[in-house]
């Protein structure tokens, strides 16, 4: 197999790699996909696919801490970061507890999953597009950098991504700051209607209706919208797009309008009739029991399998370059049989085009390890995430959290505005998770009631019913700007057992983002006062990511939105890929994934990454023709 020459060799079977693989194979090209995770995770035959997914479910049920990576195998031969490994960094000694080597000064708090399907297996599923001003942050607000692609240019690819992922939302609900009526194309509707907003959302919406908040002398009227999500709902009968298909005449991928088009929700990979609607399971992060939530395996399943070879348990380690032409000649990978054993064989994958889709951190690692694509010295730099700042308290009445997907509504007011000249933008999701994230509720409520309050029997039940059912969690995802010193590095002292590098991460949060947390806390205080929420928020210096701004302490959590490590740009001097998503240094090497994004905005990045993956696939097809 190794000696076969493919049209394209793709590294990574997550959402970016799956979209490129599906698009290229459907256009007739022969593709080899290398995946570091286990073979079992790629079973598509009904019984095997079910069995493997149930094994994830069982692992999740048995896990004491229900963190995002809890259900999925952590392989010694292809380790994944885990949020359980986080702790404050002491002095200048790197924390080497987990897969990441954390140099700090703040530990990097996000994870990802190195398994077939990638991090879409545990993602939340929020599918907001980025806003037009996010693409021109430097021009409009003098911050960060501009993208070499505009929102208008990316718009058709967002439509492709929304079909591929299967996004549920109502266009008429989607009102964002500083956007016009033309934000969505004329007559555009999402493939499926919106996921119902939770009871908790409805109570909260009632509480803040018509409310104005003051921030530094400016006044903003709050409004709440439903959140577009990559989970199945009732198909919208006005949806009339099919595709994308390769259009020879224009040399582009296009969606076609068709009156006969109707969207069929894509069910579980083991049974098309399972998961055709979201069933409201509250544990869809980290694992949707019925696969009503999108994951990249659904995309891979619909690739043309006769043109797709997949090699699993294959960890890409080096990009080989022809020194005279600068072209990539091969990807070297380490093939292991047993994920716990250090034994492997070295293999080579050859093709015309090479695509790294291994995740922003892993892509950077492979490039740095190979010494390629880095004439700009930007590989591994500009690592960004959303700083998740949480506030939590008890509502005046029962709102029944822990039902439905993690978050079904958000306040978009602070996603864009002139304040971005001074501090970061943020989106405010309203969570259905009670105090789960910051305080490990409801387990912690039970143990506190039993151990500290000595409650039992009816009293215990009454107490839990009264408190747990009133838990409200507000959530502020603050934008982080690209900073070259926030970076992924390599150090030969830190290797995994296959002899691949572990990511060494240096990370901090600038005042621009810290100021947003201060603004967020101020807004939260106003909301809590207005709605009558009893504040339980608590930020301690012992928290892993605790920081001080203006004399006040805040704790933030990672969002799992790892962006920017091989960014695109206008010039080869300060970016790794061009707007085509092609490395400036090697004409047959493309990068896909969130690493290409020059800024992060306030959208969970998967939808934008998916749109960019179609964009990249289009450029690759043009190249292969």
């Amino acid at each position, binding site marked *: 197999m190794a000696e076969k020459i493919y049209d394209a060799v793709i590294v990574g079977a997550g959402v970016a790699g799956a979209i490129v693989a599906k698009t290229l194979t459907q256009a007739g090209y022969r593709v080899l996909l290398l995946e570091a995770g286990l073979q079992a995770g790629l079973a598509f035959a*009904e*019984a095997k696919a*079910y069995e493997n997914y*149930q094994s994830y479910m069982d692992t999740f049920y048995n896990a004491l801490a229900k963190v995002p990576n809890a259900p999925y195998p952590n392989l010694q031969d292809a380790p994944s970061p885990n949020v359980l490994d986080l702790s404050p960094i002491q002095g200048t000694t790197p924390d080497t507890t987990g897969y990441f080597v954390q140099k700090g000064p703040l530990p990097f708090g996000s994870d990802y999953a190195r398994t077939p399907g990638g991090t879409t297996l545990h993602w939340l599923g929020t599918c907001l597009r980025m806003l037009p001003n996010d693409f021109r942050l430097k021009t409009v607000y003098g911050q960060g950098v501009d993208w070499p692609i505009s929102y208008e240019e990316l718009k058709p690819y967002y439509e492709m991504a929304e079909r591929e992922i299967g996004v549920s939302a109502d266009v008429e609900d989607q009102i964002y700051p500083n956007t016009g009526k033309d934000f969505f194309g004329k007559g555009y509707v999402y493939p499926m209607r919106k996921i119902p907003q939770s009871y908790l959302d409805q109570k909260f919406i009632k509480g803040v209706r018509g409310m104005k908040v003051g921030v530094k002398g400016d006044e903003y009227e709050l409004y709440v919208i439903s959140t577009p999500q990559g989970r199945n709902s*009732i*198909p919208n*009968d006005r949806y009339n797009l099919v595709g994308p298909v390769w259009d020879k005449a224009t040399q582009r991928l296009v969606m076609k309008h068709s009156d006969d088009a109707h969207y*069929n*929700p894509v069910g579980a990979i083991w*049974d098309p*009739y*399972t998961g*055709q*609607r979201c*069933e409201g399971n509250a544990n869809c992060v980290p694992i949707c029991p019925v696969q009503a939530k999108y994951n990249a395996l659904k995309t891979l399943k619909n690739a043309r399998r006769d043109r797709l070879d997949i090699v699993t348990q294959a960890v890409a380690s080096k990009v080989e370059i022809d020194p005279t032409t600068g072209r990539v000649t091969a990807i070297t990978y380490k093939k292991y049989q047993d994920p716990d054993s250090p034994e492997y064989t070295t293999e080579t994958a050859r093709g015309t085009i090479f695509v790294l889709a291994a995740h922003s951190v892993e892509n950077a690692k492979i490039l740095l390890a190979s010494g390629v694509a880095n004439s700009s010295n930007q590989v591994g730099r500009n690592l960004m995430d959303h700083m998740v700042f949480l506030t939590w308290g008890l509502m005046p009445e029962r709102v029944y959290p822990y039902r439905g997907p993690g978050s079904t509504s958000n306040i978009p007011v602070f996603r864009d505005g002139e304040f971005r000249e001074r501090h970061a933008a943020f989106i405010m999701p309203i969570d259905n998770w009670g105090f789960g994230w910051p305080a490990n509720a409801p387990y912690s409520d039970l143990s506190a009631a039993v151990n500290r309050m000595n409650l039992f029997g009816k009293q215990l039940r009454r107490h839990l019913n009264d408190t747990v059912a009133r838990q409200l969690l507000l959530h502020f995802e603050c934008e982080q700007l690209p900073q070259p010193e926030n970076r992924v590095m390599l150090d030969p002292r830190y290797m995994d057992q296959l002899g691949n590098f572990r990511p060494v991460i240096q990370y901090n949060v600038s005042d621009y983002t810290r100021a947003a947390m201060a603004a967020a806390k101020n807004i939260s205080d106003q909301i809590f006062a207005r709605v009558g929420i009893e504040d339980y928020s608590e930020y301690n210096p012992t928290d892993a990511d605790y920081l001080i701004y203006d004399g006040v302490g805040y704790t933030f959590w990672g969002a799992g939105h790892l962006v920017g490590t091989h960014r695109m740009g206008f010039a080869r001097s300060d970016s790794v890929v061009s707007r085509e998503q092609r490395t400036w240094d090697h004409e047959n090497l493309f990068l896909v994934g969130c690493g290409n994004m020059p800024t992060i905005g306030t959208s969970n990045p998967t939808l934008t990454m998916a749109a960019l993956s179609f964009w990249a696939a289009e450029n690759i097809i043009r190249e292969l023709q």
Partner: protein
Amino acid sequence: MTIIKPLIIANRHRLVREGRPRIPEAARIKTLPSLRRHLQTAIELEHSTIPPYLCALYSIEEGDNLPSSEIIQSVVVEEMLHMILASNVLNAIGGQPSINHPRFIPEYPTFLPHSDKSFEVGLQKFSKPTIDTFLRIELPAKPKAPPEANRYHTIGQFYEAIEDGLIRLSEEKNIFTGDRARQITTEYYYGGGGGVIPVHDLDSALKALSEIVGQGEGVYHTIFDGDHKLFGEKIEYAHYFRFNEIHEERYYTKRDTPKSGPTGKRLPVNWDGVYDMRPNPKMKDYPKGTELRKKIYDFNRIYVSLLDDLHRAFNGEPKQLLNAVVRMYDVKYQAIELMKIPVNEEGMTAGPSFEYVPPKG
């Protein structure tokens, strides 16, 4: 000679009979009230198979017998689709489906409503004899069996009589006078093959009926000696053949015919991976005041509220179907709980009794 044509529904196709049914004069449905009564019976008939299928499905121990579970589950979902389709036809001709009246649920074991009483259907655990019964329920009509309006031998014959009635009566005058807002539309149905067909004229009514019969029994008349391509990726197998795959513990392949039976790869069945539910459970098996009796009562209350939801959905409030979905989960959880409670020395277990119990007044 019966002509077979492909019917394409939602990108999948199956084969159905073409042309007009030929019904003997005596067996014809001649009046609109009679036609409505027959459609009400159709709804009851479609429903009457659901409790037996659910018992078999929920008696399978969690995680075991995956292929069989999927087959039974998809059949149940499609029986619900048939209820919707029959209700759509009844609503289209100005009728009012009645779903939540005390006699709506048959007393198991029972003969199928209006049948020729050749076999009884009970509430039983997943087993080979149970699948035998399911095969008889979904049995295609024998060649040349005439349609009968009252004592029909197969479900297909019963529907042919209705089809004939629809055609004849609409030749006399327009019978499709029902309020269109009472139709259940496509977006509410998922989880199984086929699709909802809103009914507003003869053509859509006949399509709805072919959908029912096509899914249930496949191509009738010529089924056992047919050499049509009935199987394969894009073809939805009729329920009869899907149950037959379980029975024979083997899948059909593209080359198979009804005559050849399934010759594909093995379909693994673990007849022991099942809760040993005592057949045909009843509330009266357990004294009043016992916890078990209350549990079965609670189950029945939930099941009857599910029927209430469906009743409202079929009578002008289609959105109630969304509630019914939530209720289905309660039905499932409570039924499985009952299946786990041992009731005698042999280790047999309790089970859902599917009896009508009125709301607490």
